[in-house]
């Protein structure tokens, strides 16, 4: 399928060297997007975490061991492996900004997109969501509650973009040229160490534009050709090397 050309490319740059792995982003995401709380989450292959924090290890023994945390939202790939395979056009990448959509009422739950995504960024509703009594009062008005049987994923808090554009229009600004931080997803917003940056990768006025061009910036599995809109940043070579598969003799990106 012909890839769309966009004038805006929303992207994230996550500074792994600033992430303590606290998990606040995961909570904020859940709350913002009405993912139902669960009493049991031991089986991570059954939970819904649009944002998931992975622990990375340099695999060395004590005392040379090093640890890092990698928060993983949807990569909003420029060349998505998921949307092209969907048989019912329930997920597309055709809107300005480059966010890969997910239309819950359209999804038939075939999970082909999940098989396609190497980042495990897509989640299936194995059960109907259960909100303990009263807790449904804190549902935000932003994201409809998904029934069982459909796939869901991070949308970069797409509703926040809609709101930011609306606000810009209201204030007489150009909604297609939002200022830095006029639109940021909940996870980036809440991060207690400021490890996450968000903005238009194509806009030179935005911090992420500059950060994404750093030699320390990398993306996950670039060799597959998914062209993600989420960048990571680390000065540690071993961290960057874990961003992609390398043959032994291959040099790490940025080295």
């Amino acid at each position, binding site marked *: 399928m012909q890839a769309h050309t966009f004038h805006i490319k929303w992207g994230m740059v996550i500074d792994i060297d600033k*992430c303590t792995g606290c998990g606040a982003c995961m909570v904020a995401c859940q709350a913002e997007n009405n993912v139902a709380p*669960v009493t049991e*989450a*031991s089986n991570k292959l059954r939970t819904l975490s649009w944002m998931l924090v992975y622990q990375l290890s340099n695999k060395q023994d004590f005392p040379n061991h090093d640890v890092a945390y990698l928060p993983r939202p949807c990569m909003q790939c420029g060349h998505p492996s998921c949307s092209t395979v969907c048989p019912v056009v329930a997920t597309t990448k055709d809107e300005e900004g480059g966010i890969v959509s997910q239309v819950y009422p359209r999804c038939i739950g075939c999970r082909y997109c999940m098989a396609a995504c190497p980042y495990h960024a897509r989640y299936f509703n194995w059960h*109907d969501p259960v909100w*303990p009594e*009263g807790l449904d009062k804190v549902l935000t008005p932003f994201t409809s509650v998904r029934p069982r049987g459909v796939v869901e994923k991070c949308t970069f808090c797409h509703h926040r973009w809609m709101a930011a554009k609306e606000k810009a229009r209201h204030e007489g600004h150009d909604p297609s040229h939002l200022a830095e931080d006029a639109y940021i997803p909940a996870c980036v917003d809440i991060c207690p160490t*400021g490890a996450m940056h968000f903005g238009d990768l194509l806009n030179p006025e935005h911090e992420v534009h500059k950060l994404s061009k750093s030699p320390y910036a990398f993306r996950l599995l670039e060799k597959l050709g998914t062209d993600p809109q989420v960048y990571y940043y680390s000065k540690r070579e071993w961290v960057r090397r874990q961003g992609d598969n390398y043959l032994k003799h291959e040099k790490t990106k940025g080295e």
Partner: protein
Amino acid sequence: MKKMGLDRRSFISFLAGGTGGILFTPVVWKLLDDASIWSQNWPWIPRLSYGALDRKSALCKLGPDAYGVEVLTVGGRPVTAYGNEKDPASKGGVCPLGAASVQLLYSPARVKSPMKKDGASMVPISWDEGLSILKDKIKVAGDKVAMISGDETGTAAEVLAALVAGLGSDQYFLMPSEAGPAVRAWQNVFGGDGQPGYDFENSDCILVLGADICQAWGPGVGKSCMDAKATGGSLLYAGPVENGTAAVADEWIPCMPGTEAILALGVANALIQAGRSADTMGMSEFSDFVRKGFSPAQVEAKTGVQAAKIKDLSERLLRAKKPVVVIGSEIGQGLSTFEAAAGMSLNFLLGRINQEGGVRIVPWAEPVFEGAPRRDAMLAKDLVAFLEGVAVGRNEAPAVMLVHEANPAYALPGGQSMANSLRKAGFLVSFSSFMDETAAMADLILPASYSFEGFDDSYTPYGSAKGTYLATAPVIGPVNDTKTAGDIILAVADELGLGLGLESFEEVLQARAENLGADWSGLLEDGEAWTSERTAFQFFLSMWKVPFDADLGKKGADGQLVLAPVVKLNIGSAKMATPPFNVLTISERELQGQDCFVAMNKATAAMIGVDQGSMVKIASQSGEMKGRVQIFEGVVPGAVSACLGFGHTAWDDFSRGKGTNACDVLLVQGLDSQGGASFGNPQITVSRA
């Protein structure tokens, strides 16, 4: 042949006509259309409700810190928490507990009305009945009333202390924290006044000893450290476990659990060798003390940190223009006064007291009530020491124990024995908003409203480099039959005829704001924090006002396995169990079903003879816990790391019955001469379970 039935033509007409006929009826299309509508409107899937969006400022005090958040409301209904950019304590960040704070309003663990113990169960009662029971009990108890509060920064704790003091008791305790030992060290050992804070943001070399400041000291601290790093500063972390702070530090310096203070004095020794000195009284005694007991070889033997590394640390501090050293406990509690002093001594030697990018001493807020203890007087009293005294009969058990914003039955070292000490109180009253372990064993629960349901405030959380004050109005009225803690206490005081002089907690906060010179309406209306750059005036600083404890750092022991507990705020804090929305964040390395994990490195596991996933029992002199072995190379050899926050027995399905409580293994290792109890890294035995 006579044509019956079908010829070729009529066969095709039959097929085409049949298909076309059905498609021409609306049946198929209507059914399909309905199917797509049904499948997205099941009655059991909650529907969203909409309304005007607004943000109201509120306070998050669920962790050891306190900071401002903004609560998003939809048609007046609180839905989720965002950061408050105007709060210098948080800089707009939110910790994982704060991120789940709004949902806690409707937590299944909320106490819905006053309750009293009736045999083995709790029965709901009215507020009038509850207040009158408490009044009667206090009348009988006279001055044998004690209190415990976990609200280290709020004025509610002060109202409670005013009541207790008014009754003639001086048993007003705060839950153990970093502030207690730090303040005791500052005031007693160095002769200072005020609360130490750290100007991480402007420092160019931050040496962190033990404390997981970037993960567990509140969102602003992490951000400040990252800001320092971004401008070329370095962040060094020394501790037994590669925790959140180690993950973002430029370097992790592994040291044996509980030996950070020894490392500090080793570095102090190196600084003195390099010619550093503090121009204060007691310097020569201090210098003799570290030279004698903390030579590089001695320190290396105890901490496991190589002499060269100690020298390197001292050199890096010396090279830096604006270094700062902070010491604390991995779990935010349990440091002894002298351990805190050991860390602070480095800031003295480096000349970093009341300097930009160094330690800044924030003045105390004067009490609102006359006769009420100032915050430092409360911090000077050590709850663990007191309850231990009750356990061994050194202290008399109070006739009435009032517990506010705290869960001592769960979160104190040697959990079970502390719970027993609490049980010895004649009458245990909990003001908890949640059915925590303490509330579950209380004789009476007078449930306080959740922070978002009433007025609340916070004055300068420990660590903050400047004075801050935040006050917030209710975001929503009480969703259950609860009252603001301050108002409950004022009502009790009123009933007892101990009129504290102010009618409502709102007035109390107004008075506090006035005392500080903050604009009350500004605080409430735009969530703007009052801040002050003022530092406390120091009359007479000394390196050696009280001689350093010679037993310093007896926590770790050679050749023994030692517990290295850690705290992860997403799992919970001393007062908060895992909130519903945080269950998802607990990793498969920390909890699997009902079993929590304990981490150790390969060498340690081989030494004990256990493997990844083995179920082990960890026992100290005070208690035991169980967990599965997690091989993690980010733990020093000889140490076993366990996460606090598991093993709840009360609360709700989101936290109850998950793992075991590592607090049970924590052991009080003695009281220092300044009244502080030190705990945190007991010797343990590990056996297969």
